[in-house]
Structures are given as C-alpha cells and as structure tokens.
C-alpha cells in the first residue's frame, strides 16, 4: 500500500480527463476522449476491438481519410463518468459470414455505474446507467435516458429519449419529467473527482 501517495490516484490530462492509474485501457490509439471525462479504477476499455471489415460506403469509393475513420473503436464525449469496474466493449457481429466489431460511440454527460458492461452502438448524451447493468450489443440509447440498477438491455434495443428503463429484459418503465432534465449534468461530479 506504499504506492507513492504523492502521485495520486488519477492522471489528469491537459484536456481535463481524469484517468485512474488502476484502470485497463487496451488499444489506446483507437480511443477518443472528448475531455473532462473521469475513468475510475478497474474500468476496462477495449480499444483493440477494431472494425475488421471496411464499411460498405468506403469500399465503394475509398478516400484518403478512410484509414483514420476506421481506426476509432471507442469514441467518448465530454463530462462522461465511468465508475469502478465497468467495461466498454465495441459490439461485434458477423455479417455475410464475416465477423467484425463496430465502433462504440458515447456522447456527453454519460454516467456509467459500477460493474456495468456496455456493448451498445450509440449512447446519447445525458444518459445515466446504474450499477450492474448490461447494455446488449448494438443497443441504441437516445438522450436523457435513465437505466435502473441491474437492468439488462437486450441486443438491438432502441431506447427513445426521456425514458426510464429497468428489468430483465429491460423495458420502458417510466418517463423523465421536465424538471429532472437538469439533473443529468455531470460537471459538478467531474469537479468533485480529483487527486486531493
């Protein structure tokens, strides 16, 4: 436990990201962080699960920035918060007999609770995901969605904006009221996390 307390738990980058020294980020070159994102201990981000087949549009007319586009496995916006022990995996499936992963896009102000596994295609902005949640492959979660603790979102599910989702399999159990919209802002949470 004499692990140099002076160093602090988090590495703070210039763009305001606070990344725990105890997290596992694999394939860092394929991950984009928008800034001011907190990644806590024991978080796993699988940036190595890259797309192996070129996207159908680029195969028809290859462009110079094609390589750059396909090199992103996980894209994360600003003010996201990944709690202890959650995992981000780009989803994968086989189309026409060939297996490939597809990028995982996460917008701004997304909170992911401890121990949750995210294999979604898109997480919109202002999404709150509770503890122990599984977001299935290629799920699409729109803006202002709250996922209750322990929910299992089946693969390919689409969750519209302003929904409260829970259960196994997850279904829409409620609506976000107008006044709750402001509560999704994670700026204060980002400020509260730090080495001191």
């Amino acid at each position, binding site marked *: 436990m004499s692990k140099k307390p002076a160093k602090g738990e988090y590495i703070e980058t210039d763009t305001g990201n606070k990344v725990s020294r105890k997290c596992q980020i694999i394939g860092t070159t394929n991950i984009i962080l928008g800034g001011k994102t907190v990644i806590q201990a024991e978080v796993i981000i699988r940036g190595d699960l890259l797309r192996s087949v070129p996207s159908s549009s680029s195969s028809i007319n290859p462009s110079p920035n094609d390589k750059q586009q396909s090199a992103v496995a996980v894209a994360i916006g600003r003010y996201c918060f990944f709690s202890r022990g959650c995992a981000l995996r780009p989803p994968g499936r*086989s189309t026409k007999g060939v297996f490939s992963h597809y990028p995982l896009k996460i917008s701004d102000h997304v909170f992911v609770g401890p121990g949750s596994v995210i294999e979604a295609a898109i997480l919109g902005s202002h999404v709150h995901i509770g503890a122990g949640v599984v977001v299935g492959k290629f799920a699409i979660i729109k803006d202002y969605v709250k996922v209750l603790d322990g929910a299992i979102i*089946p693969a390919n599910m689409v969750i*519209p904006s302003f929904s409260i989702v829970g259960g196994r*399999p997850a279904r*829409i159990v409620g609506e976000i009221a107008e*006044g709750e919209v402001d509560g999704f802002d994670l700026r204060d949470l980002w400020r509260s996390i730090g080495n001191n």
Partner: protein
Amino acid sequence: MTSFTPYTYFQCPCTENSTSSRTFGEDLPSPTSDTSEDDRTFDPRAPRAAYSLHPLEHLLYCEDCHQIRCHRCVLDEIVTWYCPNCLFEVPSSSVKSEGNRCTRSCFQCPVCTASLSVSSVALAQTGLGADISAQAGPYVLNCTYCQWSSKEIGIQLEKPNGIYAQLSKVKNGGEPYISAKDRRREDRRDISESPKGPGPNETLDADSQFENLKSFYQSQLADSAPSGGMGFMGGYGYGSPGALSRIMGLYTGSSFGDKKRESKNGNMREVCDSSEGLQLTSTKDDQCAITRIQRVGWEGTASTAQQKEQAQSVRFMDDLRPFSHLLRTKRSKRCRACRHILSKPESKVQNTRFRIRLVARNYIPAITIQPLQQAPTSLLTPMKPVQFVLTVKNPLFESVRVNIATPASTPGRFASKVTVLCPQFEIGASTDMFDEALREGGKEKRRTKAEASEGQLQAEAGKIWERGRNWVSVVVEIVPASLRTDGPEFMKSQQIQKDDGPLREDEDVLEIPVFVRVEWETDAAHEESGGLAAGNKEKELKEKRELAYWCVIGVGRIAQD
C-alpha cells in the same frame, strides 16, 4: 437494512381543498377536520397525502397563477406520436385509422417483450462459415434475449421488410389468414355460386366475429330507430335528437318514450347464426383445451403477463404471436386553471429541447437535509437529540425571505419532537453563471468556516448555521420518538393509548411536515407580456410576491429498541 437517503417531497396545492383526512383503521373522519383550514398541520401519513406529494423535479410552475402544478393539475396534449423502436413519427391521422401500434417492422417477443430482429433461416442453418451469397430464402423473427423464434409458432416470412403486412396475412402454423373483409367478399362469391353458402355454425376467428356482430347490431339499431333524422344513424349517435328524447323519456318517466320502445321490441332480435357473429360454445372446446394442457404441460401454457400482451385471449405458447410496439407520445402540458402552456417539447422526435419549460425548481427554493455530525449508523436512536442541517437554496434572481414552520411534534402514533433553531432568514439572489465559475474559490472558504463552527459543535438558536451566495442552512434539532407501544400507561401518548398495534410498514421513518413561506419582491413589468414590458420599464414597479406550501422531509429511520 437498506440505506436511507433523505428526501423532500412538496405538496401540490391542487389537493388542498379536500379537508377531511382519516388515519388508518379509523371509521369516522377525525374530529380535527372541523377546525379551520389554516390551523391544520399537514399529515404526511394520511392516506390521501401520498397522492399530493411529489419530488421537486416532477413539479411545474404556472407563471400566471403563481402556483405549483403537479401532473394531476395539468392537461396533457399530444404533440407527436412515434414508435419507440424505429423512432418514426406517425401522423395522428394514421393513428386514428391504423391504431396505436407501429405498422412498420417493429415487433416484440411474445415471451419476454424484447424487440425481435429479422434473420434468414438459410444462414442460421449453415452457421457462421456459410456461403456469403446465401442471404436469401425464408426469414424468421428472432428474439435476441430469450432465443424465441417465430419458427416455434410455424411462421416464416418471405421478405425481410414489411413484416407487419406479412404477419397480418399468416396464422400461427403458416396457414394464410383471411381477414374479415376478404372473407365477406368470398362469402358473397360463394353465395352467387351455390345458394347454400357457409354453414350457420361455422367457426370464426375473433376479428371476423367482432366484425359480424358489429355490422349485425348496427343494422338492427338502424332498423329499429324511427325513420327520419330521429334515430341512431350508425355509430354512437348519442347527440342526435332521437336519442336525446329517449334519454329525456327515461328521466321524466313519461309514457311517450315507452310507446316507442314497445313498437321497437318487435323489430329487435338477437344474433342467430355465424354470419351474424353467433358462436356456439360446446363442451368439446373445453375438452380440447384440457387434452392440450395434458399434452403440452405447464411449460406450454402462457403466463398471465404474456396473455395480457396478446390482442386475443390465448392460453398456450403455440398460440402466442409477436406484437408490434405501442406508439409513444410527446406531450405538452397546460395549466388546468388558466390554460397557459407550462411545458412544450419540440415536435420532432429526435429533438430533445423544449420550447417552453416552466419547472418548479426554477421558481421555488429547493430544500435538502443532512445530518450535522456523521453518525456511525444510519438509524436514529430513540429519545436522543440529533441535529440536522436544513439547506434552502434559492433559484430566483431576487433575494427571498423564508419562513419555516414545523409542528412541535410530528403527526402519527410516534411523535418525534422537532425544533427549527432559526425559522426566519433571508437568502441571496441566484445570480449569473459568472458567479458559478467563482464558486471553486468560495468552496474553500465555506469549508473552513464549517470546520470552525464544528469545533464548537454548538448551534445557536436564532442564528443561521451557514450561508452561501444563494443558499442558507439552518440547524434542526430532532428528538426521535421511541417505537415502543408497551410500557406503563402514563408514559404513553394519547395516540398509542388509542391504538397499540404492531409497527406498520414505514412507520419507523421519521417524516417532518414543514410549512414554507417564501416572500420576495419582483419587477411587476417583468411578468407582463413582451410588448408592454418596454412601456412599463420606466415605472420600475416593485411587486410583492408570496408563495406558501407544505413539504415533507424524510429524515431517517428510527431504530427499534
């Protein structure tokens, strides 16, 4: 023991005029109900209270009535219908004609309600290494959650799109389904070919039976009604003069209604064969069901939750059908009293912004409570005074004066004693974002101040505990009640003497009713409509505002000794 998070619920004034409240197990309204309304303290345990208490986030605020509005005192108006799965906007005209379900390809699993995906059977059979070009052939609906497949009910589709249309043409087991309309057309053709037609005891499916019944009774009503514009002209013609005179006849009991009815009686008759929608039940059907249950067993029967989702009553797993997603709506909200819009979302499905959003948290102070000293357990020890910090945060751009009042002891069987050490104070205005940025500097100062006062561990009566730019916190002293109902008679309160039953659910939660009165001064012109505002600006009229409401603060659970 689950952890307890303190909460604050606000009472919406829309329920205030209902005066009589009863406690559990009491037959007559309590005698306190005849005291004047102002003297009454709000009882959070009254059975009615559960319907009027809301978290601050769920409340709206009407700027014209200057009043809190909850979901019970607003009117909802549907702005947009859309499918929650494909997020496709459905025009309200097609909602009227096609019903409130998605008519595209969005289906839910009949077993677990997860959404179904289309996959080719050919590919599934040959596995991952299948030939790439073999992306054709019959398709099935697959559930990715419970692995249910439409193959189980014998449905395979020819195309991967337009599933709604395809499914409506096929019965479970793969037989083609003939809709009621087509059936009638076919019947007519049959009649022209052979005069006999279908037998009178032909079995019908639910849709065509309903169709037949509806057409039969509509024709009966049309025949029996007096000719001219006096009857039900199809549908529900309750507004027609004929119907009106009939209803009036019912009330007045006059004979002129009866006379008509007598003449009608001869004309009206009931259904008598399947073309009119009559379906005879026989013991054979029951026998069939019983033998089927014996064959398929418990696993083969559908649960009540699964049955509820089906359009027709269904008993067995083999009869379940995939059902399409229910449409969802975006709604705007109006004040019931003055009809002003309180909330209006953008009509586009994908847009999450609001055009109008008058939420209560922008108008009334938020109240939070936390313990002054961090206790080792989350439970409150009975009869031991504890201090809590009550923080009131002002969202308005004007400074407000706040009065807080609590009853000396909480209502209910176990009366805890509550004292607010500083019931009157003033809170500064919530100014711009500019100050928000400076907050980090202020935070440090605040902490040291708190530490300094914590050193004393002494809250003075009549003094504010802490103060921020737009918030003030005061100390509340609470002596939790003992949850014992036994003991000597003279120790008991009147309430327990009356009722010394065992502890009820959540009766150990300490809830304090708090009456909050907020006063502030505002520019009168500020509230006027845009055109007038410019003219009135010179006057600089100050208007006094007042808002008073009850709220309930849940402090914690009391330990049972």
